[in-house]
């Protein structure tokens, strides 16, 4: 399965005349953008080195915000339709203001204030309202929204979700022939591939009829981004399979259960938003998240959980302490790594990971 490189792919798209909106993580109405023929490309990953952004940000801001700003400052030729800042956290919200008012990019800057809190009358009404407002702001630039295109975009999104759910299930039960590194590369490709390209990639994924070889140990990961490719490869080498995740850049974007095919786009998007797994960035209930984690640990038979925490990520750090305490109390082995999205693992982190896997191996040894 060939997955194109993010930067090269987006550059080629921009050169072909495709409208591209630079989107900050993590939850935003991509279907509405698709309906206006705008490609939503998430810009939280490249580039690696942060040089220009540091001049505008405090040292205690998370590296994702820094990377995003670095991208905005350094790659002005890829994004051509504007930037969209969902209210994932205060740091991203402030970055939106900064980019718009202080740094002064020439492209339009949009915001999208996701509701914080779970499903109820007020939050659903609010969510529909901001969807409609966002639609209006797009219509002001691109003309009236074509209802059939909006529905088609939701149908595409529904298909992608169905594939992702099947793949997620296959991974839990060892019916997937992808290793850790390949799996997360596939998950993250949705951040920048055109939905049609992404769907055809998902259609190529081989789901086995019979379970493949069992890994030496099974692990769940939680946090914002998956561990760096180097860590994933190291886990592959050790024979540890990540069988479930609770990542903002992973399963937290996949509905908890299958939905009916869309009929009314607005209803569909609202329903979808509220059946996403609990998430620290949406002010979710901690008990609900714990329940979700335990359920996935059990379903995937994961022996331990790895929290990969992005340094200075406030929403995750709020939840993390209590989650660890409770999971440890339930005798789940827990390891926490704090990352600044470095490309290499330090010797100490390598030892931590290896020791953690030794602990998991002991649990499965006779």
């Amino acid at each position, binding site marked *: 399965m060939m997955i194109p490189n993010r930067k090269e792919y987006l550059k080629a798209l921009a050169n072909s005349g495709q409208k591209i909106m630079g989107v900050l993580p993590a939850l935003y109405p991509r279907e509405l953008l698709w309906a206006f023929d705008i490609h939503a490309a998430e810009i939280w990953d490249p580039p690696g080195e942060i040089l220009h952004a540091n001049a505008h940000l405090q040292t205690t801001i998370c590296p994702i915000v820094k990377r995003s700003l670095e991208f905005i400052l350094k790659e002005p030729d890829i994004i051509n339709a504007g930037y969209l800042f969902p209210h994932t956290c205060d740091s991203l919200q402030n970055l939106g203001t900064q980019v718009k008012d202080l740094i002064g990019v020439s492209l339009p800057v949009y915001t999208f204030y996701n509701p914080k809190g779970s499903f109820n009358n007020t939050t659903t009404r609010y969510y529909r309202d901001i969807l409609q407002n966002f639609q209006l702001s797009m219509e002001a630039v691109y003309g009236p929204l074509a209802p059939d295109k909006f529905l088609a975009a939701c149908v595409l999104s529904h298909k992608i979700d169905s594939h992702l759910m099947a793949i997620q299930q296959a991974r839990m039960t060892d019916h997937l022939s992808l290793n850790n590194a390949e799996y997360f590369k596939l998950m993250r490709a949705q951040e920048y591939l055109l939905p049609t390209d992404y769907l055809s990639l998902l259609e190529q994924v081989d789901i086995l009829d019979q379970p493949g070889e069992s890994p030496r140990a099974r692990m769940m990961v939680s946090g914002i981004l998956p561990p760096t490719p180097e860590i994933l490869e190291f886990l592959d080498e050790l024979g540890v399979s990540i069988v479930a995740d609770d990542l903002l850049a992973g399963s937290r974007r996949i509905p908890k259960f299958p939905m009916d095919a869309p009929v009314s786009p607005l209803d569909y998007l609202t329903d979808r938003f509220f059946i996403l797994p609990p998430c620290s960035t949406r002010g979710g209930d901690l008990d609900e998240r714990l329940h979700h984690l335990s359920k996935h640990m059990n379903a995937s038979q994961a022996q331990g959980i790895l929290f990969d925490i992005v340094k200075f990520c406030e929403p995750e750090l709020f939840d993390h302490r209590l989650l660890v305490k409770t999971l440890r109390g339930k005798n789940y082995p827990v390891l926490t790594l704090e990352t600044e999205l470095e490309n290499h693992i330090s010797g100490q982190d390598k*030892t931590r990971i290896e020791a953690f896997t*030794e*602990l998991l191996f002991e649990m499965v040894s006779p």
Partner: protein
Amino acid sequence: MADLYFAGVDVGSLSTDVSIIDHSGKLLSETVIPTGVNGSEAAEVAFDSAIKLADLSREVITAITATGYGRASVAFATGKTTEISCHGVGAHQLFPKTGTVIDIGGQDSKVIQIDSHGRMLDFTMNDKCAAGTGRFLEVMANRLELDLDELSSPLNIEGESAPISSTCTVFAESEVISLLAKHTPREHIVHGLQRSIVNRIWSMVASIGIEGEVTLTGGVAHNRGLVVLLEEKLGLTLNIPENPQTVGALGGAHIARRAYQSSLELGPN
């Protein structure tokens, strides 16, 4: 299992340690040498010297576990295991009632919880800096122009320990310079430094808790002043091995022995 021998080779950042045991687990020899710049060479030298001390030859060693930060560089090892697991097993061999191991190594410190078989249950390790490690003491010994032995004495003169509020090596060193400039007695500064490490270790212990007896391993366990303060802080008496530096290597040797035994039980594939 007669005439079977097992070794653990612990290539740490400061020292390389080797332990050799026989089939019954009896310790035959131990060596500790500085690692220097070449971990794999240090492993060869330390291993040869331990073999010689045990009056054996390389060929009769059945299985060898490499551990420590340089574990990947031990080409002659038959297996590798992290120092975290090795310290757990080593401490269990020496003090079977150990439930918690505090290892203060040259470059990092760990707190490890183990079960009644020496198997690791949980662990925590210090962050990516030298706070609370042997390296911290080394830097301070240089600054105070003391050798490590002198840095290990408990406070035995009148007065308070000097307040060193920082656990960071760089900031603590500046504090030491200021204290020296104010003519603070060196013994008080030493005591302040020991307290600073103890506070750092304490925060790690607090994050995973204490179970059973507590065994202190790693070269810093030789520091008597620090041991007194740590015992005071934890409110218990620590198990101190005779050779705290070689506990990881000893654990490695026992892991090699266990692995060999279970391969016999499982039979050839």
